């Protein structure tokens, strides 16, 4: 018996993270971030999931099935829209990757269809999910219905109140929505509650996590499932731009999945990658290294190490952490992380609406707001090409905007 336990791979061989945004191996590490900080009870489930995902991801049949689902059901590829009028106003060349056009209204469906198909392959009969704004919950309920699985969605009581329409959508899709009454009764707590519940039903249930967070293999798996956004955009940019790739690739960051998926398509290019956090949930800007919900990353916490609540007008950015790979991309300098406050968001959303006829989600408007600011301040060289991922549509946010205006 050794005196000190050594870190050990959960399963299989460790493939070290060689290139940028590559396979983090079985340790699930991105530099010092990531890992699998979960109760022992969940270790076998995470290990089983990692193995199943590795197997599926290497299986051309699985990839083909998923690609077909994404195409015929979710409406992929989504469009790449040149934002003509706003480009003109800003003196840049702005391209929008239109995840707002994906089925259910955001990029969340990409991840969820992949996980649901995987769950089915693993013989699971139920999906669990946490949700904040309700987008991931709706996407999960959708995929469950489509594949004949049950769905249980955990949602904070506060969020249930402010996102009543999405709650109803989930119910119409046949999902059970469980109100979370603990803690701040928002996304952070619904994630905790989903993990707690998963412990009780690991055999039949797959925990369908909604962003590039959680214990390994989630951050990597979700990034891989979202890379379709970046891969498509890469191809579309090549067709659209004389330079082939944009100068800037910009996406908003809640947990970081739409950004990770987008960045993955451009990691090996010269594009400057920019993640835009909400000021009230800016783990990179204002957080410190910590561990929550199974992974190590930047985390908003008070001086005693208690996790603090994030506050953003965009419910989907109301998360105190950031996906571990983003922490690593930031430390290595491959990506930059910037911050936008609530006050900049509504004008940005409105400006995009009035120039391009697109009502994007409040989350996505953070990315637009930064581009507007950077273009107007001269930070973006004139006629730079800027790709922004519009992660979702704004319908869900109309009530919030009505109150704010």
């Amino acid at each position, binding site marked *: 018996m050794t005196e*000190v*336990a050594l870190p050990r791979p959960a399963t299989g061989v460790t493939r070290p993270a060689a290139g940028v945004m590559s396979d983090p191996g079985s340790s699930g590490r991105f530099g010092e971030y990531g890992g*699998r*900080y979960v109760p022992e*009870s969940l270790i076998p489930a995470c290990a089983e999931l990692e193995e199943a995902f590795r197997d599926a991801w290497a299986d051309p049949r699985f990839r083909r099935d998923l690609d077909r689902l994404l195409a015929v059901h979710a409406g992929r590829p989504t469009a790449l829209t040149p934002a003509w009028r706003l480009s003109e106003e800003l003196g840049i060349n702005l391209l929008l990757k239109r995840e707002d056009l994906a089925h259910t209204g955001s990029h969340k469906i990409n991840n969820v269809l992949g996980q649901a198909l995987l769950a089915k392959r693993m013989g699971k009969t139920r999906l669990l999910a946490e949700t904040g704004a309700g987008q991931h919950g709706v996407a999960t309920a959708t995929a469950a219905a489509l594949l004949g699985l049950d769905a249980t969605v955990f949602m904070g009581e506060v969020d249930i109140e402010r996102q009543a329409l999405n709650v109803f959508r989930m119910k119409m899709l046949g999902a059970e929505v469980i109100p979370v009454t603990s803690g701040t009764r928002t996304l952070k707590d619904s994630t905790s509650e989903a993990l*707690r519940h998963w*412990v009780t039903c690991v055999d039949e249930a797959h925990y369908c996590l909604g962003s590039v967070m959680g214990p390994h293999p989630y951050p990597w798996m979700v990034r891989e499932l979202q890379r379709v956004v970046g891969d498509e955009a890469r191809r579309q940019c090549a067709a659209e731009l004389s330079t082939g790739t944009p100068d800037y690739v910009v996406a908003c960051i809640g947990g970081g999945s739409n950004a990770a998926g987008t960045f993955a398509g451009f990691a090996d290019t010269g594009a400057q990658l920019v993640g835009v956090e909400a000021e009230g949930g800016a783990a990179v800007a204002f957080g410190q290294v910590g561990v929550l919900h199974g992974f190590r990353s930047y985390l908003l916490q008070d001086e*005693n190490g208690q996790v603090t609540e994030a506050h953003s007008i965009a419910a989907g950015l109301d998360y105190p952490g950031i996906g571990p790979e983003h922490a690593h991309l930031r430390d290595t300098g491959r990506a930059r992380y910037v911050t936008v406050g609530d006050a900049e968001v509504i004008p940005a959303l409105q400006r995009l609406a009035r120039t391009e006829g697109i009502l994007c989600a409040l989350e996505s408007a953070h990315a637009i707001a930064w581009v507007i600011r950077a273009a107007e301040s001269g930070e973006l060289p004139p006629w730079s090409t800027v790709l922004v991922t519009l992660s979702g549509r704004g319908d869900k946010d109309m009530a919030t905007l009505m109150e704010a205006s």
Partner: protein
Amino acid sequence: MIETHLRRRRSEGRSLLVPYVTGGIRADWIDYLTAYARAGADAIEIGLPFSDPILDGPVIQEASGRALRRGVTVRGLLDEVAAVRIDVPLIAMTYYNLVVHRGAADFCRDLAAAGIHGLIVPDLPIDESASLAEAAAAAGVDLTLLAAPTTSAERLAEIAAASRGFVYAVSTMGTTGAQFAASGGRLAADLRQLTDRPVLLAFGVATPDDALTAVQSADGVVIGAALMRRVLEGGTPDELGATVAGLRKALDLDAGRLPDGARP
């Protein structure tokens, strides 16, 4: 330290009893420690409250929340503990972020300085435990690992080997305060095949009957949510002391009744 103590107690034919209290749940929370010790606890687990206790059920979530709303900090709690003398070993139970926040080495030194020589971190599985285990060992703190009903035989062996103080056997696939489950018995029995370290069953042990069932296969029990429910309801240190005494008595009677180990 913890382990030596528990092994000694076990060798006296005693079923081990480790009651839990959430640090700072009330202003007089230290009195629960004294009461538990007086009631015959073999060690006491002190929860250092964390904002996001993902392995805790509603009762300990609520207790942690209440303590945090009272404004407690790890530093303050340790100071309070350092100021009293408790006759049984103390074990801290907390989540990994509080360790990372302070830094593992400092965190363990702080514990030891306050007279706490055991540590349980439920969201730190063995695979991620290397650095903390090292720091704990350096500070003279036993880092106890958890085993679960779903843990494979191979992992059980590693956990049993690497755990210090005792092995914390989670009786059920659930959170603290869940229903006590028979699966725990099998897990404890398996662990006892693998190690002669004390094996304590936890999660859902609420009544003397539960405890008696548990010690049919384990060396003892940790009792948390069942006690904290009463604390939340206003149970005083004396009242909780009496509860622990009742558990103690049941375990001792049982041990006395069947000294030959011929438990059914």
